[in-house]
């Protein structure tokens, strides 16, 4: 099967391309990128006219999602989660291992991949547990997990429990080329905290999680990455001290990368009080931080010290969220809002250009995880995200493909959206309001 994406602007930072290019797709792979590829004499060629105001990008990869299956299918399944992914412009997702059972052995990995293949929407790259049952004691069988298809290791939801385990994980996983993704949080400092320790938590009587709980763990892990030469990736970075540590680590050659979520570069802890107080859709871990931290995340995105945008898509059933703030689980959904929020709050505000946004959403996640994609170079999988940077979008949680609706962005009017999502040359999602027909 052959398809041609004709017209529109193409951005592929991995090849240094930004301009008017056509993309020829054959057998699910990129066959050619060129100006004005001729179509005559090819009756079997499916020509897709890309509107002039749309931008063709290598498929976006959300490197931090929770698909909840197996174990928590009332929150999300692999089918609904990948449907949300393609509707949000993501051709691939990396899913965290904190399912039930935990993805600490190859049979769980195979189950996930089988379900993903059945769904046939976005690519799914499982992230394996660092330790057996993520208990922080014994290393999981990382070699076998790698062979089964896992691309990284993490005890996400929890930090890698001890410095010694982190050291061993960095050393051991390096032989498989897998980064260690750490949820950086010193549990003894975070205690039973539910919100950022600061003025707003004080006023509302909410137990605080200090910024230092994240920062000391990022520091620990950077030191250990330096010691071992292993690759350490900071999950959902939220405080300015962590960013400072990452910059310093990179400057001295440590293999450290980091991601930030849209909610941490858009919202701050004032949201705990208004417009709705104690909104459980503003409860996540790490918590919404103070304004200076939020601004530091924007600066890190701008200056290149932050490598990736990830949603930390964390679906929860509404019964679970419709409770007292203390009792609600942490997390919000993000797959279907990440791209519009990034376009509106990063591109249209001038924080980053479209090229840099594609690096954050595609090029860098692919390179950190060592997965195919992240570029439309000849021979790459034909995973393509077509965005409409000026499309007016109103977030409507009731229309989410995700099984859950726990978002603080419901009703937000944004500029910029996803026009179409193509995985392996096959159109998985089209936004008809973008004036797009495939």
């Amino acid at each position: 099967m052959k398809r041609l994406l004709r017209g529109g602007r193409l951005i592929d930072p991995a090849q240094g391309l930004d301009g008017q290019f056509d993309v020829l797709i054959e057998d699910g792979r990129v066959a050619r990128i060129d100006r004005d590829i001729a179509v005559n004499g090819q009756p079997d060629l499916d020509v897709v006219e890309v509107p002039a105001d749309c931008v063709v990008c290598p498929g976006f990869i959300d490197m931090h999602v929770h698909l909840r299956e197996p174990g928590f299918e009332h929150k999300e399944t692999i089918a609904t989660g990948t449907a949300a992914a393609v509707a949000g412009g993501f051709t691939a997702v990396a899913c965290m291992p904190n399912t039930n059972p935990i993805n600490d052995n190859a049979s769980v990995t195979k189950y996930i991949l089988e379900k993903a293949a059945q769904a046939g929407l976005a690519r799914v790259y499982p992230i394996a547990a660092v330790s057996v049952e993520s208990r922080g004691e014994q290393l999981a069988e990382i070699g076998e997990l790698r062979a089964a298809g896992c691309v990284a290791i993490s005890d996400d939801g929890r930090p890698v429990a001890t410095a010694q385990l982190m050291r061993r994980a960095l050393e051991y996983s390096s032989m498989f080329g897998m980064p260690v993704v750490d949820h950086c949080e010193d549990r003894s400092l975070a205690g039973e905290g539910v919100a950022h320790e600061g003025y707003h938590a004080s006023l509302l009587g909410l137990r605080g999680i200090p910024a230092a709980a994240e920062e000391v763990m990022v520091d620990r892990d950077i030191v250990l990455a330096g010691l071992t030469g292993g690759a350490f990736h900071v999950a959902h970075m939220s405080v300015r001290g962590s960013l400072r540590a990452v910059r310093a680590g990179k400057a001295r050659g440590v293999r450290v990368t980091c991601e930030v979520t849209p909610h941490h570069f858009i919202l701050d802890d004032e949201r705990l009080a208004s417009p709705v107080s104690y909104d459980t859709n503003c409860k996540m871990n790490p918590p919404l931080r103070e304004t200076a931290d939020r601004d530091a995340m924007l600066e890190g995105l701008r200056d290149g010290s932050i490598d990736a945008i990830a949603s930390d898509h964390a679906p929860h059933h509404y019964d679970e969220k419709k409770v007292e703030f203390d009792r609600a689980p942490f997390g919000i959904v993000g797959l279907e809002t990440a791209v519009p929020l990034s376009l509106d709050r990063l591109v249209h505000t001038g924080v980053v250009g479209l090229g840099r946004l594609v690096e954050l959403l595609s090029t860098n996640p692919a390179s950190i995880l060592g997965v195919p994609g992240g570029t439309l170079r000849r021979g790459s999988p034909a995973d393509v995200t077509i965005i409409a940077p000026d499309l007016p979008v109103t977030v409507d949680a009731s229309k989410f493909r995700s099984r859950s609706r726990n978002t603080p962005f419901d009703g937000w009017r944004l500029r910029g959206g996803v026009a179409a999502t193509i995985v392996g040359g096959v159109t998985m999602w089209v936004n008809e309001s973008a004036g797009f027909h495939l």
Partner: protein
Amino acid sequence: MAMAPDLIVVRHSASGACDFLARICRAGIINAGDGTHEHPTQALLDAFTIREHKGRLDRLKVAIVGDLLHSRVLRSNVQLLTKLGADVWVSGPPTMMPPGIERLGVKATTSVDAAVDQADVIMMLRIQLERMEGAFFPSFREYFTVFGLTTERVARAKPDVIIMHPGPMNRGVEIASEVADGPYSVILEQVSNGVAVRMATLYLLAGGAEA
């Protein structure tokens, strides 16, 4: 909801439980203490008690001393007393000082002597046993030495100072018995006033008219 009560009086362990209930329920909600957030009727009865003795709140120096971090009495009193013009000082160990508390318009100090100096009102807060396990302070003995309200400390305040406590008290921890039972103490009056203030709250919120 189906029983359609006019009022629900809520005391709850989670901060914000009353806000949550008020959003989903049509009854009037009276907050009788939610987590470490607020205890509005305690603040009302405290303000009432102070006014009974001093005739006013404006420009009075009020020192609130103790576990500031976990106290809903503190949060409600700070809002009400500052609104009524009092000069509110708060004091407690740095481990139990809520970050950013100065932004509520109070003076925060770890020196209890500075807080009670020339005070018109001293309000002591209860210290809970489990705070010691959380390493907020080393021992009750040490807490009493550094923060306990003794007759010596009371002597730093104005000669007509009143001593308050929302109860229940830990004698010999945050307050010496001599002070709790002494001539400046209005602690039992607070309890009596609490009944009147809560009756008034129920009456007014249930639709009663002001006399």
